[in-house]
């Protein structure tokens, strides 16, 4: 009788260890990374206190569901801070940076710059970024942000 229980126990143990356990959600491997390049830093208005990177599936966005954004602000004390935006597999028609003014809410119309533009070179071409199973990570997505373009920023 005891032997039977022991064998059953061992069989169960083997079964459990042989099973591949599904842990559900894990790390998100896909994402967009690059640098935010601030131009004319001397013209940064004092009222701006945070900048986020945002990727947009539809432009103009129809709902919040069309947006993916970083939860933390970009480091504003650096001239070319790097960023990494974990993002699901999708085609993002615009990857850009938005700013927030002190004491105000985030407003997704306040775009500071986007991927594809370079005000120094007079380039204003919006370039999409596609994350797929074959290419889950897009690196080198640099976003040029010109502080002079912000109202009250000096231009």
């Amino acid at each position, binding site marked *: 009788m005891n032997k039977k229980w022991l064998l059953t126990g061992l069989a169960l143990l083997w079964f459990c260890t042989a099973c591949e*356990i*599904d*842990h*559900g*959600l*894990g*790390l*998100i491997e896909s994402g967009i990374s690059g640098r935010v390049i601030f131009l004319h830093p001397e013209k940064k208005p004092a009222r701006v206190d945070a900048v986020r990177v945002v990727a947009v*599936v539809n432009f*103009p*966005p*129809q*709902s*919040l*569901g*069309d*947006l*993916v954004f*970083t*939860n*933390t602000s970009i480091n504003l004390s650096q001239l070319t801070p790097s960023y990494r935006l*974990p*993002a*699901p597999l*999708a085609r993002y028609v615009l990857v850009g940076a938005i700013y927030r003014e002190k004491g105000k*809410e*985030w*407003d*997704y*119309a306040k775009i500071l710059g986007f991927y594809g533009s370079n005000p120094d070179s007079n380039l204003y071409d919006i370039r999409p970024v596609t994350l797929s199973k074959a290419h889950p990570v897009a690196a080198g997505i640099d976003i040029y942000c010109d502080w002079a373009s912000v109202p009250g920023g000096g231009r």
Partner: protein
Amino acid sequence: MKKFLTLFLLGAAILYAAEEGGLSGRILDASTGQPLPGANIQITGSVLGAVSDNRGQFRILKVPAGPHSLRATYIGYEPAAVEVILSGAESREIVLRLKPTVIPMHQVVVTGSRQPETLASAAASISVMDRMAMRRRNLMGAAEALQLVPGVTMVGDYITIRGGSGYNRLGGSRLLVLLDEVPILTSDLGEANWNIVPVTEIERMEVLKGAASSLYGSGAISGVVNMITKQPTREISLSVRQASGLFDEPSVPEWKWTDQSLYYHRSDLSVSKSYGPVGVRLALSRHASTGDRENGHFERWYLTGKAVWQLPSNASLTLFSTYSHEQRDIFLQWLEQNRALNVPATDRGDRYSMSGYVGYLVYSQVFSPQLSGKFRLSFNQQLVGVPFNITSAFTPAIGASGEGQLTWQPSPDHSLSMGLDYKFDTVESAYYGKRNANAISPYIQEIWKVSNLLHLNAGLRWDTYQLVGDSLEYQISPRIGFSWQPALGTILHGSFGRGFRAATVVERFITAGSKDFKAIPNPDLQPERSILFDAGVRQTLDERVYLEATYFFNRYVNLIEPTLLASQLAAQFVNYPVAYIQGIETEMRTRFWRDRISLQASATWMDPRDKQSGGPLLYRPRFIAAFSPSLQLGRFSAGADYRYIGRIEKVAVYPLDERVPAKIWDLRTGCRVRNWDFQFVVRNALNYNYTVSERVLGEIRNYMIAVTGEI
């Protein structure tokens, strides 16, 4: 008028005081001899009855002389009956022994029709979670008890029945929550504070699904949960529970955010005793946790008291009072999926406190074996804590209500309930101003036992709701239902009715904002209205297997749901013109190997759809299921609970985020020594990761030891 009422009550008492005796005794488990607390004892064909206390004891006073049939019922047990002949003012002591069964149909419930009825004769779909089932699982809160109930699921902190609600932060509940039949939804948010009463003080929870507005009014648009609290005992009784747990490390090493141990404790203590005709029960609980994540810490205290005074002349007065206070850190959403147990730096250290008080006074009077009345006053003051760090801008929301109900059985085949419900709400905040509201609702319901095999019921409620200075909202909500036994062991049942819910003050008027989010008011919001239908079959096979299947179809008009505005991170409540939710709910219970092994399983499929867009409604799973095997070998026991919640099809804020179904295994083993239970529980045993709401991870694996006992 007052004089007339007093004379009437006195007259009724004197009239029926003559030639009356009493019945008292105990209700025991036939196999173990253990007392069965919370069993229902009824004198058949009358409104006379009682509920057994912690020691299985009961007492029914003022029983008229003559022959009577006394019937005792308890969930998980076969009913037992005894014939008694009382002569004059004789008192009789009776012991009834009940045998365990898997058939729940004999269980008496009160929520389905506001009067005691068996599940077998209930037209509505009702599920019950009793104290033993809750004790076995060592639950930490009342809401946890509902997660295994067929058709019920939890999205975030929100309990939803048959997909009636999704995740609706700041939105009102479509589920009316009652504490001993007293409504306790908050007056501002219209949401349930599940932590108002310690789970150890709950005798059972009855879940009424489908059309309920005809009996309970605004808020009960998709169902009712009635938390029935424990009764004071006759002799002194001391109950204690100590549970302590330790969180494991996350299954994703990158999510580890601290090297410190993460743990929780819960202590519950209650004492009960009767002093002559007055029974008193007091309970004190504390629940504290570091949480399994950053900003996860909380500490909660409860103080609960209940006094029941058995008055002469077959009347009783119940005074109940409960207070809870909580301080907790806020985890609104993770920093990012790769750091799922961290909050954004700006949220670090955010916390709020919430407190709530609910008190009620109920006077019950049995005027005669055919006529009884119940009169209630209640007070509900809660500061649930708006989930942003702005609690100081709110004053507690206050709701005061009163109700009178008469139940009349003119013949053994007819039972008529009628009553009047009044509620006054007053709320004030910098975010929605000062608002007062009145709701008055008369109702009536008849249950007609056409034969032993066929029961019909019909009810009507007129709901009125008016914010002071605003227009009157009203609805007449009818409900009809039946239960029919066409063959032995088979019961068909069905119900059809209308539901109503007035928009809450917060849904209409809130103007609030946080660092990342704001809410925009919509004063033109219309009340929600629903038509609910369900029909099903309850089947027993050889007294060992119980099966239930129910089809439901709910149509909602002006469903109040949040909508998000893209240009700014902002939300506003709007009316969805028409939405449908239909589905099938199934349940199975069985026991075998001389009742040592029991199995319980349920599965619910739902199709929640917005008619305008044709797409699914927000935050509703299509499929939920639960499976609970358990084993009892003498004093040793082991069990498991598996919950499956299908992948949420549509979310509002982050639809691009990866979403997975929830698959959660809880395991437990225990040993009973005299009146003490020693248990070891593993919650989320496979350390499965899923989101309970957007960007909020479910609890990670934790190990708990618990000791529960009575002295």
